[in-house]
């Protein structure tokens, strides 16, 4: 499958926005992790923004950045949202409430607990009516999302917005699923075009060793391993370095998603 990257959005500690992220990943500026400012997520109406979860705001922020760079109208772009655990912060609040004698839970909190909450809010904020999928593949959720998005691009010949995110898991759920730093990334993928967008070839291989190496920078490698969405750093680093590289993503132990990124300026 051959697809172009039409735009990138990024939000993580020390990687606030793709302009900064690209320079850090290209080694032009040092990686300086620090507190991530609460995303502006400007598309959300103020009352929704106030009530929204971190997942929603982070996903909105990177989606908006990527779509903005692509120049596409978000109403014309189907979406794929990938997250390992989804709304873990909402689950925590719901499960706490369900331990209390009256088991009263907020209706808003309940409808925000679905795995497609961020996808739903993106559709509402952009008034989009295109297809929207939300999926999980545990630690391989980014790769599964990339597979689904690339498949939609190739089979349906449409641009697709892929958003992958996992946020810090709160106590006590973190005892069962520790994720210590938030990470969100968005890619607009399009059918290959004549312009200068980076082109990548995506295919599946049976799992074997040697193609799923990590990152050279030990601090960034720690981030990549901490958060399933941060597995995307391999592809982002290849793009920041100007392409001409092949990266592999593990897919449910038995397969690898291989991405050959052509030489590019991004």
């Amino acid at each position, binding site marked *: *499958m051959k697809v172009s990257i039409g735009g990138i959005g990024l939000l993580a500690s020390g990687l606030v926005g793709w302009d900064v992220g690209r320079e850090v990943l290209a080694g032009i500026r040092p990686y300086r992790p620090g507190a991530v400012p609460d995303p502006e997520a400007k598309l959300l109406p103020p009352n929704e923004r106030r009530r929204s979860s971190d997942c929603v705001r982070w996903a909105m922020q990177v989606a908006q950045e990527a779509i903005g760079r692509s120049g596409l109208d978000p109403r014309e772009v*189907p979406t794929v949202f990938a997250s*390992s*655990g*989804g709304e873990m912060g909402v*689950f925590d609040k*719901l*499960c*706490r409430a*369900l*331990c209390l004698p009256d*088991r*009263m*839970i*907020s*209706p808003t909190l*309940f*409808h*925000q607990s*679905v*795995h*497609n*909450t961020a*996808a*739903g*809010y993106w*559709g*509402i904020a952009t008034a*989009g*009516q*295109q*297809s*929207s*999928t*939300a*999926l*999980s*593949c*545990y630690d391989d*959720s980014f790769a*599964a999302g990339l*597979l*689904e998005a690339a*498949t*939609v691009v*190739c*089979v*349906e010949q449409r641009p697709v917005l892929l958003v992958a995110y996992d946020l810090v898991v709160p*106590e*006590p*759920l973190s*005892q*069962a*699923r520790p994720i210590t730093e938030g990470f969100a990334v968005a890619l607009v993928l399009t059918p290959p075009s004549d312009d200068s967008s980076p082109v990548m070839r995506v295919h*599946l291989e*049976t799992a074997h060793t040697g193609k799923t190496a990590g990152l050279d920078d030990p601090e960034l490698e720690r981030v990549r391993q901490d958060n399933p969405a941060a597995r995307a750093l391999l592809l982002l680093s290849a793009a920041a370095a100007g392409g001409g590289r092949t990266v592999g993503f593990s*897919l*449910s132990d*038995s*397969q690898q998603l291989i991405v050959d990124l052509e030489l590019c300026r991004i």
Partner: protein
Amino acid sequence: MPDPKPMTPLTLSAYTLVTANGRGVGPVLQALQERRSGLKPCDFEDVALKTSIGRVTGLEDFSLDDELRAFDCRNNRLAWLGLQQDGFMVAAAEAKQRYGAHRIAVVMGTSTSGILETEHAYRERDPSTDRLPDWYRPRYRYTHNMFSLGHFVRTCLGLQGPAMVISTACSSSAKVFATAARLMQAGLCDAAVVGGVDSLCLTTLYGFSALQLLSADPCRPCDEDRDGLSLGEAAGYALLEFGERVGGRGTVALLGYGESTDGYHMSHPHPEGAGAVRAIRDSLARASLRAEDIEYINLHGTATRANDSVEDKAVYSIFGARPACSSTKGWTGHTLGAAGITEAVISALCLAQGLMPGTLNCQRVDSSLKSRILRENQTGSISFAVSNIFGFGGNNCSLVLGKLP
């Protein structure tokens, strides 16, 4: 937007279903024919809500052991029970022989996965330290995490192709057909096991109660006095293969799918059903069928005031009052993330048997609904059916199923 291109039909070369009506397609079909509901007053755990549920019996009486022990939870027990019915394991094993384990995808849908385990673990957490019980911590991955169901099914079937869990609330296990069809069309696999499993839990019971969407009585889809939904649980699967390889005349196949969003509200449908219309139209375009070709529509028909009314507007605007329409939620309850596979398998049964089930519990059809809502069962050959699923986040999916010529 241009209409989507026609798709290659995909044969449902095996399919199965477990609902409150019984285990396997035989008991489900019998319940449809005898108009026997699976809904009963809520007796799930210690839940004291006044509502009816479609509970699958026996899930409390066994556990998953040996290599499946880590997966043990209500949702995966239901998933396991589903795999045991209608020779599905054998069909999957034969497909594995034909194509190889790496060439069969597993695409499953669920809305709440095994969240019931986390609900239980929170009750047992240490009040002073918030520490979760030891039994729970290593098992989150295999029970509550959204991918648990996909991991479980591919483990049980020994499949090694691409796997993922789609979780878009109620539309989850309708959308699995679309994702699997694309994976097959892109050449990434030769066949796919698709399905959905969703099980009762406190989150959905108290959540829908908080939204004031639960009926106190067994749900009455399309009835003028309908006052909300009944929750159910179900497990269903279908094995999808390219029609030209396995499909004989009269075999049921997936002919089209359509996906859309409302872009309107998280828990209320678009007032004119604009997203639903788009999903239905796209499913017809992929099936290369016209609205006039459709003889039966399995409605989403949840029995909430809003859903049935908006769905009717969407259906009527495309089909007029010609095709027979019914909701089967009065049998199964709303099985949420499993609703897509539940109603796809029921629609396949209807096609295979020439049955159009009349909407159970609908005493008087709401006079504001313009579509032709069936109240009584009808028999007669059906060639093409549409199944609608609409969900939270305004996420819509329609499937066209039909018999191969």
